[in-house]
């Protein structure tokens, strides 16, 4: 996917971004001078231990939180408030329990006051791509956790956003559902030209999905390392047994050991 040269202007540019939260116990530095450029159409994952500020970084990108210092631009424009030109998926599916699966996907178009006929066609198409065509009319309570998260991914893609932000979207799912959803996600991404910013605490998930993996340190969150993942696409589950894949897992694990995230003694 990232075939264009480095000459092209980055889709997302993060430079010198710092975030300090002031709470009751004083100030907490969540992020310290983070720099990262993301190319158009690139799949970038951020891996780090809990509390390293990766979710904070995502919130800053979405404009839902304001940064303390530094600059974030998307297509050259500085982010100053909530940015609606993107899709967002949280760890919780955040489906509205009073809407059917289809209507949950269509919420995106309703809020944006888009053409509903067109949106309906696209919503059905998206649900079919994640094998939920028979569950369009089901309420969220009638769906399993994995199905619900698939609906929420469809919702985030309905308006064909150029940028998709995902905050540990598969973190609450069991291992098998997780595998399936990773495949579904890659399929959905391959069908469109979209930049994905993906947060996870799973090393293998990050490698499996991404073009680049960003390693973050424990608080205050800094970028320790950015690793290119040179594996062919489309990716299949068997890729995880590939020596090259395993090599990446080892390399990332060593980095986290050196950061003191893993302690084996």
């Amino acid at each position, binding site marked *: 996917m990232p075939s264009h040269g480095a000459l092209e202007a980055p889709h997302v540019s993060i430079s010198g971004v710092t975030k300090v939260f002031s709470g009751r116990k004083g100030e907490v530095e969540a992020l310290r001078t983070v720099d990262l450029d993301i190319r158009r159409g690139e799949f970038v994952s951020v891996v780090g231990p809990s509390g390293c500020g990766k979710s904070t970084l995502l919130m800053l990108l979405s404009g839902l939180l304001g940064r303390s210092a530094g600059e974030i631009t998307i297509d050259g424009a500085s982010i100053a408030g909530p940015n*609606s030109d993107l899709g*967002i998926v*949280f760890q919780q599916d955040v489906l509205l329990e009073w809407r059917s699966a289809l209507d949950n996907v269509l919420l995106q178009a309703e809020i*944006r006051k888009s053409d509903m006929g067109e949106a309906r066609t696209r919503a059905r198409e998206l649900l079919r791509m994640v094998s939920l065509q028979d569950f369009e009319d089901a309420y969220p309570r*009638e769906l399993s956790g994995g199905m619900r998260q698939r609906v929420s991914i469809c919702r985030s893609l309905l308006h064909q956003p150029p940028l998709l932000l995902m905050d540990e979207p598969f973190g609450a799912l069991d291992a098998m559902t997780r595998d399936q959803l990773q495949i579904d996600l890659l399929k959905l991404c391959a069908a469109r030209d979209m930049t994905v910013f993906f947060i996870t605490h799973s090393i293998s998930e990050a490698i499996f999905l991404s073009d680049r993996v960003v390693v973050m340190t424990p608080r205050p969150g800094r970028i320790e390392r950015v690793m290119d993942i040179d594996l062919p696409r489309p990716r299949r589950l068997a890729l995880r047994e590939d020596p090259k894949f395993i090599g990446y897992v080892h390399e990332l694990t060593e980095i986290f050991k050196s950061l003191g995230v893993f302690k084996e003694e």
Partner: protein
Amino acid sequence: MASVPDTTYIARRNPLKTLGERIPPAVWTLIALLLFWEVMVRLREIPQYILPAPSVIFAEIVSYWHRLWPNALVTLGEILFGFACAVCIAVPLAVSVVYSQFMARAVFPIIVMSQTIPKVAIAPLLLTWFGYGVTPKIVIVIMLSFFPIVINTVMGLRATTPEMLYLARSMGANGWQIFWKFRLPKALPFIFGGLKLATALSVIGAIVAEFIGADKGLGYLILIAGANFDIARQFASIILISLMGMSFFGLLTWLERVAIPWRESVELSGKG
């Protein structure tokens, strides 16, 4: 006796088993209790001025109907009008508490604290202010039923999670859309919970208000019958009040099911 072949016909088409299954068990319990009551009163020859049998009470409802129904209408009017007023005050108030810091900090705590005042104690005061008519009854109904509606609506509107609001804002939703498409539907089950609580309280409010001073209404009839030691007539009024209360509650339960269809799916999946 023309009905005999009919019953056998029905019995053949619907065996007793399915007929019994279709009637809720609680109805059988009620029938059993009434039978027990009837039998005990007759066997032990309990005098009517202590405890009349259900059959006597039923006969009283029929023979006294011409006085019962106009008074029941008065009480029903007080209940429904007071309840409607309570909803009209409570829901907007709850919305203002959720949206305004001032209302939440300066007004809401006082509303909550005011609930420690026994409303019945205020009733004579209301009589002094509003006279003998329908007004003080309606005011008491409002005072009693408004609180659970406010509390539940506030709770419901605050049940929107931060993630829901993040999602809404990432879609570019304005405040109006956030209220109608996120907060209000989320709050509906809570609001209906409050409304159902309020139905029972509004009935209590109307009767208590009539006890304190009235010249019509079922509460008034109970007082008069009490003064005359007419127990059957008291029971007749009580049964009518209870039926009104139950129907009101049933109406709201039905409305709830219509307004919150996604809840029904919970019940269905719970059975499976």
